[in-house]
């Protein structure tokens, strides 16, 4: 009710704002050339800001507060990180940090934190990922009055495993496996794509049609199908099943990488410098790795970032559906599924409801961070100015 009213109100206020702007500034071009649509946009933005302030201070919505506080904390952390990067390190890295937007430094910082957590999970986690402890369903926050325990800052799950430890191990499992899978997909798709672009002819036709066939099958369903077969093969060997999963997702995702690298490669192959290299008598390996690849890094890196997110989400979805990373190994996708019932208590105990959001938030944060970094890299390599 209040939102349509605000929208209508903005419609009336916008011309007024523009008119008073013109009067007050002595008809400056900025106000004079402002379209009414833009003025309306400013009014709406102001309303949204007022709404958020109300939500934060008066209404006191706890999740919104966390969001705002988190945002500010991350922004400060990113700023400090960039500041540090500008003063520490080699001349090259300092130069990079000097031109870096805040989003990119936030992304790099987040990725670094994830990497450290994943690598040192054994030492960082207070408990083991499979360890079942005394009390189940402890509320996060560690305040005994609200049903928490200072020993388990993020609480425990239904069967009494420490959620903080599982989140930390989840970084190792989920991120590590996603990274390995993406690398494999790129190795496969990139090599074949460049080969198809450089050699052309029947090889190109064969590979392209093969990829079309693979792409024609919906990715998640295809993965589910193959995983079912794979789990029959793997039997009770969990490690082997994980390996199968990596290969299956890598093959499915390599089709997208193939498409991209072939398209990028085709654009590069027609360049005169490739012709010059061919006429020099250069071999295929030199052509692909020395002439084509360096010029294809920007789009490939961008795709790597995106692909990493997709692979990551695929693994999380497979785990959520029960065929991915198998319990008791901790995995963020599985955690979201297992803890999802807690959402039902959001109205009564916001702290308890935040538990599944922690794993989901970890996924979301990494996805956003990766995309920030990729955007920055793309911007840099395309030579765009402002």
């Amino acid at each position: 009710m209040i939102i349509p009213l605000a929208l209508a109100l903005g419609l009336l206020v916008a011309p007024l704002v523009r008119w008073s702007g013109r009067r007050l500034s002595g008809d400056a071009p900025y106000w004079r050339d402002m379209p009414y649509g833009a003025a309306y946009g400013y009014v709406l933005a102001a309303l949204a800001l007022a709404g958020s302030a109300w939500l934060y201070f008066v209404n006191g919505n706890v999740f919104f507060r966390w969001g705002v506080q988190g945002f500010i904390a991350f922004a400060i952390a990113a700023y400090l990180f960039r500041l540090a990067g500008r003063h520490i390190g080699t001349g090259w890295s300092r130069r990079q940090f000097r031109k870096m937007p805040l989003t990119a430094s936030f992304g790099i910082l987040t990725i670094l934190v994830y990497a450290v957590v994943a690598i040192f999970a054994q030492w960082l986690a207070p408990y083991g990922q499979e360890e079942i402890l005394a009390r189940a369903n402890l509320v996060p926050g560690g305040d005994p009055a609200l049903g928490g325990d200072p020993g388990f800052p993020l609480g425990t799950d239904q069967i009494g495993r420490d959620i903080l430890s599982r989140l930390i191990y989840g970084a190792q499992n989920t991120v590590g496996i996603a990274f390995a899978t993406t690398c494999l997909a790129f190795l496969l798709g990139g090599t074949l794509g460049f080969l198809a672009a450089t050699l052309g002819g029947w090889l190109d036709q064969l590979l392209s049609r093969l990829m079309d066939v693979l792409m024609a099958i919906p990715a998640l369903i295809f993965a589910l199908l193959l995983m079912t077969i794979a789990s029959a093969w793997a039997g009770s060997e969990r490690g082997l099943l994980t390996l199968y999963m990596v290969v299956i997702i890598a093959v499915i995702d390599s089709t997208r990488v193939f498409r991209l690298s072939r398209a990028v490669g085709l654009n590069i192959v027609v360049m005169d410098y490739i012709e010059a290299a061919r006429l020099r008598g250069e071999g295929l390996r030199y052509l692909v790795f020395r002439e084509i690849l360096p010029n294809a890094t920007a789009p490939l890196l961008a795709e790597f970032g995106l692909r990493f997110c997709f692979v990551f989400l695929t693994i999380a979805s497979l785990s959520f559906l029960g065929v991915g990373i198998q319990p008791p190994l901790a995995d963020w996708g599985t955690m979201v599924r297992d803890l999802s019932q807690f959402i039902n208590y959001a109205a009564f105990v916001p702290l308890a409801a935040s538990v599944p959001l922690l794993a989901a938030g970890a996924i979301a944060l990494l996805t956003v961070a990766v995309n920030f970094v990729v955007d920055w890299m793309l911007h840099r390599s395309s030579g765009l100015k402002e």
Partner: protein
Amino acid sequence: MSAPLLKIRDLWIEGRSDETWNPIINGVNLDLHRGEVLGLIGESGAGKSTLGLAAMGFTRDGVRIRKGSVEFDGIELVKAPAATRRSLLGKRIAYVAQSAAASFNPAHRLIDQYAEAPVQHGVMGRKESQADAVELYRRLRLPDPEEIGFRYPHQVSGGQLQRAMTAMAMSSRPDLIIFDEPTTALDVTTQIEVLAAIRDIVEQFDTAAIYITHDLAVVAQMADRIKVLLRGDEVEEAETREMLADPKEEYTRSLWAVRAYKRPQKPLVPRGQTPLLRVDGVSASYGRTPVLHNVHFDIHEGRTVAVVGESGSGKSTAARCITGLLPPTEGTIEFMGEALPADYRRRSKDQLRQIQMIYQMADTALNPSKTVAQLIGRPVQFYSGLRGKALRARVDDLLEQIELEPETYRDRLPSELSGGQKQRVGIARALAAEPRFIICDEVTSALDQLVAEGILRLLANLQDKLGLSYMFITHDLATVRAIADEVVVMKEGEVVEQGAKDDMFRPPHHAYTDLLLSSVPEMDPDWLTNLLAERGVGNIGEAATDKM
């Protein structure tokens, strides 16, 4: 004298790059009266286009007018509201861009795009403006004026498209048109048609125009007055005839002098000597489309053979046959008396080394991710196996040969070089293979005249020093006059005439050679008028066809 139509006073424009504002135009003044044509000339980067756009009160993204005024018919454009500017652009001020092919929307028919501006500005209705389009197409001597408007941009030739674009600019009968290098991308024979059409139409409607170009001979035909720009500064301005006869400034004189470069023709090779390269009865086709028909020519040691012709005449295809990229369907390529394998993949490393190529667009010919040292070093390493210090020394040596300071340029990327420097690196890469024969494919046509002249001189010096032979593909006869020993004229995949340069430039010619030669603009401001009179006033396009 009445008040000028366009009055630019103390205009300063700057552009943003690397986080700072750099000057582009420094305090230029300009006056343009009704019905007058002003030529703006200068090298690339002189700010010609920026000034042209500023005359419409417009700047590109990342460019701003720092101070100064642009007054069009009493209206101050710099400070005018966007709405005022919009009501002028397309109606009273129009713009014709360099590449008509890139400026037309490929998804709409020509006549619909023609009608857009008049309908938008409420000058005419759609029906009315389409009838008007046909009339203008007729005046611009487009073939089949009733029907041509109903074609899509890709269905007409480049020269016709440029004329259609001029017609479009005329659609609202503007008071001022800005022509930004409208003929630069065209062949000489097509250029004439467009020049004549533009000149006529501007005269007929008494339109004022700013004509931007880097070709002096063209501007001499078109403009009443000429303004010379150098890096955003005005060098001088004068009436065309006065400027041509007696340039005041040193820089202007150097521009004028460029065309004077001419290398004496070397003595003819005695008959019977084995040529370095012989193209013997070569025919070739792309798929099923034949492009070359039974082409013969010889290139002798230490000589430069210029291959000339319009675009589509098969010049570059001949080069592709020689390099082996396009195996000929008939005939052979002989190098030093031996037949070369048709496909480059079957040639030996040494055969590949002997024939090198320099490309037209240095931008696409140099791998943008490699430094100059890597670009030049690779062929050295590949063919001679030099490594480490010896390789570095050879690269420095090559850089000195192309007159680039090794210390400064060794580690630069192509994006950090100017157009002329890039082309020099392209030359060095060809030299690095120590070839005997180099194919130069339009190597100067993307460059400014001063820079192009430097490249030509460099090539000539290298030839004298290293005994190289060149096959020089070009459509610019001024270049031919400057550097060639022998000339091969091609048309529609056939050689129509060949011989020593001095003979070729002396009549009698083959009719087509004559057409090519007479189409090269000369510095004489009456040249176009005389030429049109000579070819028969009226339909110039037809006259050209008759001659063939």
